[in-house]
C-alpha cells in the first residue's frame, strides 16, 4: 500500500516509538498520585510538556494537554469570556465550525475571493469578536495570514483562536510571534501517536476552560492523562526541526504528483494562494470523490476525499465550497493526497500509475 493520507495521520516515527516504549513501565501510573509511581509518571508528562512548549515557542505553563485536536479546539473556543460575535473563515474543519456554532452567537464567515484570503483590515474585527481561523487548511493546505489577522484582532480588542493542527511541522510555528490567544495542536500530524494533542492559551487571555473535574492541567483539562501518548508527543516535538527541514523535498514530490494528476485531467484546488508543501487536493470532474477513494484503496493507494472526520458523507466539502462557492462539482469530485517526510519518489510514481488506471477504468 502507498500511504498518501498524512493530513489525516502520520505514521509514528521510530524515535517516537522508542520513546514511548522506554516510558512504558513508568507511564502507566496516575500522574496525580503523590507517591513515587505518580511522581515518575508526572515527570515524564512534564518533560513532554516542556518539549512541546519549546517546539511552539511557549512557556510550559501555557500548554494544556488534551486527548484530541478536536478537544483542544473545544476547550479553546468554548472558554472565552465577553464574546458578542464569531468571525470565521469559510474553510474551517468541523472541530472549529461546530464548536463555534455551539457558542450561540452570530457567526460571520468571511469570503475568499478568487480563492485568496482577504486582507486583515477587511475582516472588520471589533471588540467582543472571537476570530477563529485555521492556519494551514487540512484539505487544500491553504495558508491563511494568521499573524496579520491576530494582530488586527488584538488592535480591535477581539479574541483570537488559531487551529494550528496542520501547521505544526509544516510551517515554522512560534505562538508568541503569532500573537493569538489560543492555538490548537495535535501529535498525530507530526509523527506522534493519535490521542495526544495540546492547546496553547496565552497568559492573561480572557479564557476559562469549560471542562470541570479535578485539578489536572491547572484545572483546564481535568482527567487522568495517558502519559505514554504524551511522551510520544514530546518526542515528536523534538523532531519538528527535522520535519521542517524536509519540507522542500516534500514540496518537490508533491509538485511531481500534482503534475501527473493534471496530466490525467484533474484540476487543483487551493493553488491560488500560499499553500503548505504536503498536500495536493484535486478534482476530477464528473467523478465522485468517495468512490475514487474506495477504488484507490482497492488499487493500493490510501488517500481521502475531504477530512477523515467527514468521510462517509457525500455532502460536498465545505472547504471547497468556501474556496469556490459557485462550483459545487469541484467539491463533490475532490481527492486529497497528502505526503510526509517518509514519502519517496517511487511512492509518487506508483501512485500515479494506480490513479491513472482507476481514472481510466469505467467512466460512470
Amino acid at each position: 500500500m502507498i500511504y498518501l493520507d498524512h493530513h489525516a495521520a502520520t505514521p509514528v516515527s521510530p524515535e517516537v516509538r522508542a520513546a514511548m516504549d522506554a516510558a512504558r513501565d513508568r507511564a502507566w501510573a496516575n500522574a496525580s498520585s503523590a507517591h513515587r509511581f505518580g511522581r515518575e509518571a508526572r515527570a515524564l508528562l512534564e518533560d513532554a510538556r516542556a518539549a512541546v512548549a519549546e517546539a511552539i515557542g511557549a512557556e510550559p505553563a501555557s500548554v494544556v494537554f488534551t486527548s484530541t485536536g478536536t478537544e483542544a479546539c473545544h476547550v479553546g473556543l468554548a472558554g472565552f469570556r465577553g464574546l458578542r460575535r464569531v468571525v470565521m473563515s469559510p474553510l474551517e474543519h468541523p472541530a472549529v465550525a461546530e464548536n463555534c456554532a455551539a457558542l450561540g452567537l452570530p457567526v460571520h464567515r468571511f469570503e475568499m475571493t478568487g480563492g485568496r484570503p482577504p486582507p486583515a483590515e477587511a475582516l472588520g474585527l471589533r471588540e467582543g469578536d472571537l476570530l477563529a481561523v485555521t492556519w494551514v487548511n487540512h484539505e487544500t493546505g491553504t495558508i491563511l495570514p494568521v499573524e496579520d489577522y491576530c494582530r488586527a484582532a488584538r488592535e480591535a480588542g477581539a479574541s483570537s483562536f488559531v487551529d494550528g493542527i496542520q501547521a505544526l511541522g509544516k510551517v515554522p510555528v512560534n505562538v508568541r510571534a503569532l500573537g493569538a490567544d489560543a492555538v490548537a495542536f495535535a501529535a498525530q500530524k507530526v509523527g506522534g501517536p493519535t490521542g495526544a494533542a495540546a492547546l496553547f492559551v496565552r497568559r492573561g487571555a480572557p479564557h476559562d476552560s469549560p471542562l470541570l473535574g479535578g485539578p489536572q492541567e491547572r484545572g483546564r483539562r481535568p482527567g487522568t492523562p495517558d502519559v505514554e501518548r504524551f511522551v510520544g508527543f514530546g518526542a515528536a516535538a523534538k523532531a519538528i526541526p527535522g520535519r521542517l527541514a524536509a519540507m522542500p523535498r516534500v514540496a518537490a514530490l508533491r509538485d511531481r504528483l500534482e503534475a501527473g494528476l493534471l496530466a490525467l485531467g484533474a484540476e487543483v484546488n487551493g493553488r491560488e494562494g500560499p499553500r503548505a508543501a504536503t498536500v495536493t487536493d484535486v478534482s476530477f470532474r464528473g467523478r465522485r470523490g468517495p468512490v475514487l477513494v474506495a477504488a484507490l484503496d482497492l488499487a493500493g493507494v490510501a488517500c481521502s476525499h475531504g477530512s477523515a472526520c467527514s468521510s462517509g458523507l457525500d455532502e460536498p466539502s465545505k472547504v471547497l465550497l468556501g474556496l469556490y462557492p459557485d462550483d459545487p462539482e469541484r467539491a463533490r469530485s475532490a481527492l486529497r493526497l497528502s505526503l510526509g517526510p517518509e514519502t519517496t519518489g517511487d511512492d509518487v510514481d506508483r501512485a500515479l500509475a494506480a490513479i491513472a488506471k482507476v481514472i481510466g477504468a469505467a467512466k460512470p
Partner: protein
Amino acid sequence: MTRPIGKVLVAMSGGVDSSVAAALLREQGHDVVGVTLHLWDAEGENKVGRCCAPEDREDARRTCDHLGIPHYVLDERAAFRREVVEPFLDEYRRGRTPTPCVHCNRTVKLEMLARLADELGCSHVATGHYAKIVHGPEGTRLFRGRDLDKDQSYFLFGLSPETRSRLLFPLGDLLKSETRAEGERLGVPNAKKPDSQELCFVPDGDVAAFTRRERGGEAGGLVVDEEGRVLGKHDEIAAFTIGKRKGLALGGGSAPRYVLRIVPDSNTVVVGGAEKLVSKTLEARDGHFLRALPPEGLEASVRIRYRHEPAPAHVRPTATGFVAEFVEPQRAITPGQAAVIYVGDEVIGGGFIA
C-alpha cells in the same frame, strides 16, 4: 455469455441476509468487497435497529471486519430521494399504491451498484435477495428463490439485462432458517439480528404520517359510496389503499366496506362491499420483459403484490405492457402495484397496474 467471476461487490445493508451472502462468497474463495449504501436517515427513536440506521452501517462494517474484507459506505441519499422517495410520495398522492422496492432495485440499488462495481474493478454484484439467477449463453434468467415465503423475485423484474448478467444471489437456494444457521456457522456477528419488516424509509409503516411530513399540504377529501353518497371525510389520501377496511371511521353498521377506488383530483375515496373488490382483469403499463411475450399471449401466473401467491392467468402483450385475464377473480387489484408474470418459477416480466 457467462462472464468469469473476479472481484464481487456485495451490497450490505447490515442485515443477516446480506451479511451471510458475503460470508458464503468468501467461503467459496471469492475476492469480496463490501459496500453499504447510505440511502436514508432514520428519524428519532427509529435510529436503532431499523434499516438505514447508523447502527446498520456499523453492523455491515463489523461483518466485513470479521470476514477480513474491505468495506465502504457510499452516500446515495440524494439519488434515493430522487429515484425512490419522491416518486413514492407522488404515487400515494395520486391515489395509487406504489411498490418502491421495485424502483429502488432498478435504479439506486442494483443499477447504481453495477456502475459502482465498474468503478471499483468488480465483475459482479451480489446481494442477499431470496431469488435465483441463472447465467447462460442466451442471457440471464430469474427465478423464485427456494424459500417461497421469502421469495423476493417479485422486486427484481425491472433490472436491465446488463445488470442481471452480473448478479449473484448466494441465498437463492436457502430457506431463511438456513440462512441464520449459516450465519451462526460462519460466525457472522449479527446472525441473530431481527429482520426489518417495513419499508426501509417509512419508520413505522405509517405512510400517511410520512406523506404529511414530507409533502405537507392538505390532501383530505370525502369518502363516498358507489352512488356518490357522502359517508364521511378523511384528511390524507395517502392513508388509503385498495381493499383497505380499517380506519374508515364511518358511522352506522350493516355490511363492512372496503376501499374500491381512489380519485386523486378530488381526493375522493370510494368504498363498497367486498364483492366489488374482486376482478378477473388486470392491465399493466411500463412493461419490462425478460422473455418476450408471444403476440397471442401465454398461460402464466401473475403476482399482483408481494404478499400474494401468483395466480393463473392468460397474459398477452399490449403496446405499453400487458393484460392478464385471471382464471379466478383476484381481490384488490391495486393501481400502482407491480404485477409480475411467472411461468413456473421463472420470472418472465412485469409492469405496473394501471
